[in-house]
């Protein structure tokens, strides 16, 4: 356990451990509502899994609240998911990746890969122009050769792919 998970009172913070069971509980309830009025053949499998999941989550919550009542733990998030600085870094990576996914249909695979690599490396603190240009160029070119030329994968084509197709 990390230092941050055990504050001065000596209690472990277990709020983060509740995210998955609570998400599971909400999903099971949503799933059950989505199968409420349909034929039994379509219901039975989901009913079986969601019932077991709800029982397991209930058992986990009872166990957790027992520990809470005994004063062994508290419900704060603690540092299990990382320090605030790391959480911002992760959020930044997720934002850059989302932009990459959204830009892919317009820019095509090769160009968006290149720009994604440049943006992520810069975000992680790489400042050398050689590295900022060279690594993305190698990755984008390697990806183009492997996925588009060799494996003929159906990736979105953009200006680079169109240009290369026109030349070769």
């Amino acid at each position, binding site marked *: 356990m990390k230092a941050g998970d055990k504050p001065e009172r000596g209690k472990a913070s277990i709020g*983060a*451990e509740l*995210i*998955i*069971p609570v*998400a*599971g509980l909400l*999903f*099971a309830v*949503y*799933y059950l509502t*989505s*199968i409420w009025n*349909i*034929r039994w*053949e*379509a219901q*039975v*499998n*989901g009913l*079986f*899994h969601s019932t077991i*999941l709800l029982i*397991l*989550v209930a*058992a*986990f919550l009872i166990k957790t609240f027992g520990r809470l009542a005994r004063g062994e733990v508290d419900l704060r998030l603690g540092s*299990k*998911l*990382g320090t605030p600085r*790391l959480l911002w*870094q*992760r959020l930044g*990576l*997720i934002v850059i*990746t*989302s932009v*990459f*996914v959204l830009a*892919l*249909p317009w820019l095509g*695979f090769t160009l968006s*890969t290149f720009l*994604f*690599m440049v943006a*992520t*490396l810069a975000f*992680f*603190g*790489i400042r050398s122009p050689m590295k900022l240009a060279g*690594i993305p160029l190698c*990755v984008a070119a390697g*990806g183009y050769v*492997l*996925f588009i030329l060799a*494996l*003929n*994968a*159906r*990736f979105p084509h953009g200006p680079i792919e169109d240009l290369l197709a026109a030349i070769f």
Partner: protein
Amino acid sequence: MTFELLTDVLFLSASQWWLILLATTIGIIVGAVPGFGAHNTIIILLPFTLAVDIHIGLTFMVALYVATHMGGGIPAILLNIPGTGGAAATTLDGFPMSKKGQGQQALVLSFMASTIGGLVTAIAALFTLPYLARIAYSLHSVEMVIIMLFGITLIAVIAAKDTLKGLIAGFLGLLIGAIGTDHIYSTPRGTFGFLELYDGIPIVPALIGLFAISEALVMIETESMLTEGGRARMLKATWAETWEGVRMSIARLWHIVWTGMIGLFIGAVPGAGASIASFVAYQQSRMYSKTPELYGTGIPEGVIAPESANNGVGSGSLIPLLVIGIPGGSTAAVMMVVLHYHGVPLGQRLFVEDPGLAYGVFTTMIVSYIIMLFTIIPLTRYLSRVTLISTMYLVPVIVCFTLVGAFAPRAYLFDMGLAMAFGILGFIARKTGYHVVGILIGVILGPMIEQYFLRALRLSDGDLTVFFTSTIGNFLWALLAISLLAPFFIGRFRKAKA
């Protein structure tokens, strides 16, 4: 099968070494890239396999198939990202070995276990084809449901430190796997209104998100994947480490053989697949070990067991295809399409009309494994150096290439978003002790379990007691209960003893 026929097919396979070399090279590369499994690649290469003679086409497909099993272990060991579902169990001990600077040894162990396990099981399959095929006849829908629940339970017990958390992860995965329209009335269930989820949760984005994206989110915490001692060890690594890996493998030869046989038997059951086999082999290996507490910390047996079983499945899953015409997995299903296109009869007729083709599948496997042994082991020294690259450079490459892999199978941008959602789920799961492997195996088994569950219920007119009516089924229920309760009682016994 006569000795003459055996030598004939063996020489025929050996004479096609150039084709096998090409196919195994492609197979190892695509196996190592999450999202590009054997079946995807064979589909992409259908114009080739449909155009050439079926003997050449089948040799190519089989060699590529076995090589992807081997390739899937590479990212599992070096980056904690399995290339295929079957390599998920390899991450449990493979990645800790890499972190300790033993990536080279772990890779050699994986390749040796794959090669020897694959070789032994291919030879065993050659001589036991008709008997192994009977396994498929003895297991019906009821037993299949229990086997799959057994798989989830095993993973909960093995992978997670807390069994309750492991079970929550497994059943959450099963419920996620139940998303999509039902098989009979096509009623959408749990789809959040997304049309893209009507066919169910696609496996590749789930695999990529749970393993690759979540690992990338974890990786940015440190500048290097390796521990300090591990880095120092890696920097000094020479060919001696490769030989050490070879020696470690030879010292555990019997371990490779028996875990490979587990894979062969499970592979012969249509639908069970490498994901379950590798975990069963890992669990069995831990159960019979004198030091079970070391599993998960990076020990050779923890790499050998899943990798050998994974390759045993390769031999086993083709048996039902050839003997009874039922594909044992997705790749076998694609192969069946190619065989049908060429007018090749499956089942008993194949062994009468073209026995060379039927047995040739296994001799091709034997030749492929021998070729791979010499082509891939010398590369381990260079492959393992991936772990020395700073995470600053690795993370963008992993995110970019794996997301692209999520897009590849269906060409939906939605799947890339789905992989990111699974990535966040996987990250939280990793950080809070809910093992991602349980969720993934649940997602993989979800649609299969529904199929067998419904079939069993329809055959019994909706009577739920059908699940307790078969002898094999009841035996499996007992095993399931034992595997769930055993850790609890063993723990209490050890406490009492102390």
